């Protein structure tokens, strides 16, 4: 099945998310859409899947124009989509999720799930998926949930499969498995639209790459093009992908975690007997797939978790059991993983957000009174220093782009002397240009002699910043390894293998980027 998009335009109010986009997906091809966050990739795919109605333009299937009034129409036309955030009902079984909207019934509208189970087993066998139809989705690892999503599309006879940022939640090993599945689907004659901003994967999987920037097609690229060229196309100017940071000059280990255990209300140990140290002037990166205890670890340090045992000491002072405000005032800077929910108050101005951690202290307050002039002054300085693109310091922080919001958070946290700096996902959803800047700021904080802890699920970022890497898996520390450890070894550790064990193995896997870092 050949799929064509002609002049697709999608406007939200005055904002043009897609501007006359043309795209042709040939049968049996893996066609990648490469672009930064917010470039308009997901909007385009939601138009194609019938979730949004295009403002202008046409969709053609095998040369014939079609019109989708909802996802039902798109599915009937043979288009399947695996969304970035899985569209699975967590409390349903796999079979119930797959049957939904396409239910086989017996007399009287009674569900016939056996038929669905048979189909699931059939497809599982064909592609080697190993998905249990009766497992409840929320109990399954994300990799398996993703396969359930793929089965959902295949059960509905999809010929074109759209995968929206499919690797964002996967371990490197699961990613490799997904790429193998894509190859298999392709050899069965299905077309794949692969959406990503990760250059490495796009290069590995694609037959053709279309680059999108600010809602427009910038051009097509060959998968053999160099990463630097692809990145420049994506961003619109030349970018340097490597930071070239100086080697760390670690001093005294002033931040010490000893036997830290965090227990969730369910009784699960989300951080399990974890011990590590960070020296002044070094960056320790916490690597791991999302949901392996990183959030709880950082929140425990900040005093935001209940049921914490063990010890966390900063310059000899115990932090466990202290209030969050006291911990912040003792010199801990913290960039939370979700800036829009935890890092900023969206309705407050940029200036106000920049003093959220010091609003009651000099020079911004005296007694009960705040000093607006000092707040404004501080904002002007920070905006200039961090190059925050905002209409004014009084604009609501929620109106800024993701990258600029992150700069506001970083500016706040880095604008006072720190004894420890923690950043969770410092560049998630941030444009490539800003990433470069934020990384440099983190390194300069290190060079000022602050112990720095970076939590990231992006292996690229971990390798870029880390002097040492600690890998978390299901709340346990798999080991701490040097910053130049190979991707393969880190990948195995992220999947639960000990540091030494991961050293010994030599997985037969081709890494297209191994020499290119």
């Amino acid at each position, binding site marked *: 099945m050949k799929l064509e998009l002609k002049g697709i335009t999608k406007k939200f109010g005055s904002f043009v998310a897609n501007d006359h986009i043309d795209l042709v997906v040939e049968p049996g091809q893996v066609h990648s859409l490469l672009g930064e966050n917010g470039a308009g990739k997901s909007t385009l795919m939601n138009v194609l899947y019938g979730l949004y109605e295009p403002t202008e333009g046409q969709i053609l299937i095998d040369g014939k124009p079609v019109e989708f009034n909802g996802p039902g129409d798109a*599915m009937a036309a043979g288009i399947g989509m695996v969304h970035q955030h*899985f569209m699975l*009902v967590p409390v349903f079984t796999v079979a119930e999720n797959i049957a939904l909207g396409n239910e086989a*019934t017996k007399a009287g509208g*009674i569900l016939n799930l056996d038929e669905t189970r048979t189909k699931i087993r059939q497809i599982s066998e064909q592609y*080697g998926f190993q998905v249990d139809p009766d497992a409840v989705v929320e109990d399954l690892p994300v990799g398996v949930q993703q396969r359930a999503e793929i089965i959902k599309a295949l059960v509905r006879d999809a010929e074109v499969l759209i995968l929206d940022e499919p690797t964002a939640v996967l371990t490197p090993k699961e990613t490799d498995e997904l790429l193998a599945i894509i190859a298999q689907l392709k050899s069965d004659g299905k077309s794949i639209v692969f959406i990503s901003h990760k250059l490495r994967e796009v290069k590995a999987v694609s037959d053709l790459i279309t680059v999108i920037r600010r809602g427009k097609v910038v051009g097509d690229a060959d998968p053999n093009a160099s990463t630097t060229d692809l990145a420049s196309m994506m961003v619109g100017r030349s970018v340097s992908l490597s930071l070239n940071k100086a080697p760390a000059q670690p001093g005294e280990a002033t931040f010490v975690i000893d036997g830290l255990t965090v227990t*969730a209300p369910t009784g*699960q140990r989300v951080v399990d007997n974890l011990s590590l140290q960070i020296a002044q002037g070094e960056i320790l990166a916490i690597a791991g797939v999302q949901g392996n205890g990183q959030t709880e670890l950082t929140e425990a340090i900040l005093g935001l978790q209940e049921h914490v045992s063990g010890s966390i000491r900063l310059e000899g002072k115990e932090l466990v059991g202290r209030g969050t405000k006291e911990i912040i005032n003792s010199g801990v800077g913290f960039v939370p993983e979700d800036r829009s929910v935890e890092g900023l108050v969206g309705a407050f101005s940029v200036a106000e957000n920049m003093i959220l951690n010091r609003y009651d202290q000099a020079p911004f307050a005296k007694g009960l009174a705040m000093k607006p002039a000092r707040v404004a002054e501080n904002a002007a300085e920070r905006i200039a220093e961090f190059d925050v693109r905002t209409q004014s310091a009084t604009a609501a922080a929620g109106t800024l782009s993701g990258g600029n919001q992150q700069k506001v958070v970083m500016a706040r946290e880095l604008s006072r002397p720190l004894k420890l700096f923690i950043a969770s996902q410092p560049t998630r959803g941030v444009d490539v240009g800003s990433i470069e800047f934020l990384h440099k700021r983190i390194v300069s904080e290190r060079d000022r002699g602050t112990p720095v802890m970076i939590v990231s699920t992006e292996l690229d970022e971990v390798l870029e910043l880390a002097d040492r890497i600690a890998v978390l898996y299901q709340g346990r520390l798999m080991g701490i390894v040097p910053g130049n450890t190979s991707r393969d070894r880190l990948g195995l550790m992220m*999947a*639960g293998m000990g540091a030494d064990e991961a050293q010994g193995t030599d997985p037969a896997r081709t890494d297209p980027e191994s020499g290119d870092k």
Partner: protein
Amino acid sequence: MSTAVSTAPEQSTTRAGAVRSWKTPITLAVLAVFALLVFAIGAPGNEVTFRLSDPGDAIVLPPIVVFAPVMGWIGAVIMLAAAALAFVQVRAGRPVPGWLIAVFAVVFVAAFLSWIVGSARTPNVALYGLLAGSVTLAVPLIFGSLSGVLCERSGVINIAIEGQLLFGAFSAAVAGSLSGSAFVGLLAAAVGGVLVSLVLAVFSIKYLVNQVIVGVVLNVLVSGLTGFLFSTVLSADAETWNSPPRLPVISIPFLSDIPIIGPILFEQAIVGYLMYVAVAVIYIGLFHTKWGLRTRAVGEHPKAADTLGVKVNRMRFMNVSLAGVVAGLGGAFFTLVSVSSFGRDMTAGQGYIALAALIFGRWNPIGAFFAALLFGFATNLQYVLSFLGTPVPNQFLAMLPYIVTIFAVAGLVGRSRAPAANGVPYIKG
């Protein structure tokens, strides 16, 4: 390719015991000590008679006669043992088993009954009447909570159960009086319930107004409207407007003669039989049909349902309307079965108790059924006890159903899980 699957069991190795919560054992211990002091040590020194059947029944069972202190002491010992066992369980990091709490509750109620009936002027109570009355009082509650199940399973919070019941009762009274037929009244009750539902649906689904606020406003509106019409039209000419015929009680031959359960199950007005049908149909519908799968999907993850071509808002609209039918029928119980006239605010907060039963019953029709029965039992117990003349002041007994409600909702089911998208309007895109 199976590695992702094979890592799953490892998760269990990091599971330690649940965070120890001493809430349950402490609550049980406090209640057990209370039982020891009041039901055992403070037991009245006389015999208590529980009658199981009416002398006129086809099959007459002998009454149960117990000596109150004996019952009190046995009960207290069992409860103390249960509390101790709960402590042992929590200490070992295991959850307190549900059956233990159930046994505790049953023993507590039995000991309480023998104590309070024993202290009454006449230590003699008709157990069959107590139970049958509980079911009767539970009928509108059950309809109300089923209405809640239908709405909330599809993601719309229904605070307006009270309003639906009241308007159903009002419609049944007026239509029944005007037509002279109880069945026309029943039909009108369903229509009345739907009218309230439609307002809820339009505002919460189409205009995205906060669903709790719409619900509360609807309750106040229905109360005011029916109260106004009652004092102007209905009171002025009660003969024409407010004297509906009653629905006849249909006894099923032979089955209604079975002691205890006969009068409970097989001697009811048609509304009572409809209640059992509604519980069964909604249960099977929700968990075993295409409609139910879609309804639950829309209440849990509307976007996922939408991406599979399920029309989320249409589904919600339909279910909220259906909920109006169900609650309306429950409202008919007040004016066509219970008493044959409408009174101002006659539902008296039953809609809110139905809401509590819905939560206590974990959004499950059968759970809601049993929860409503519990509340019905508490209400009826209060009536029966005030009739017997107990040492406990009447005002305290009147609190009984509400105290049971608060404890049931707050204490025992802290882990109850609402549909994930409950109360969240669905906006496309």
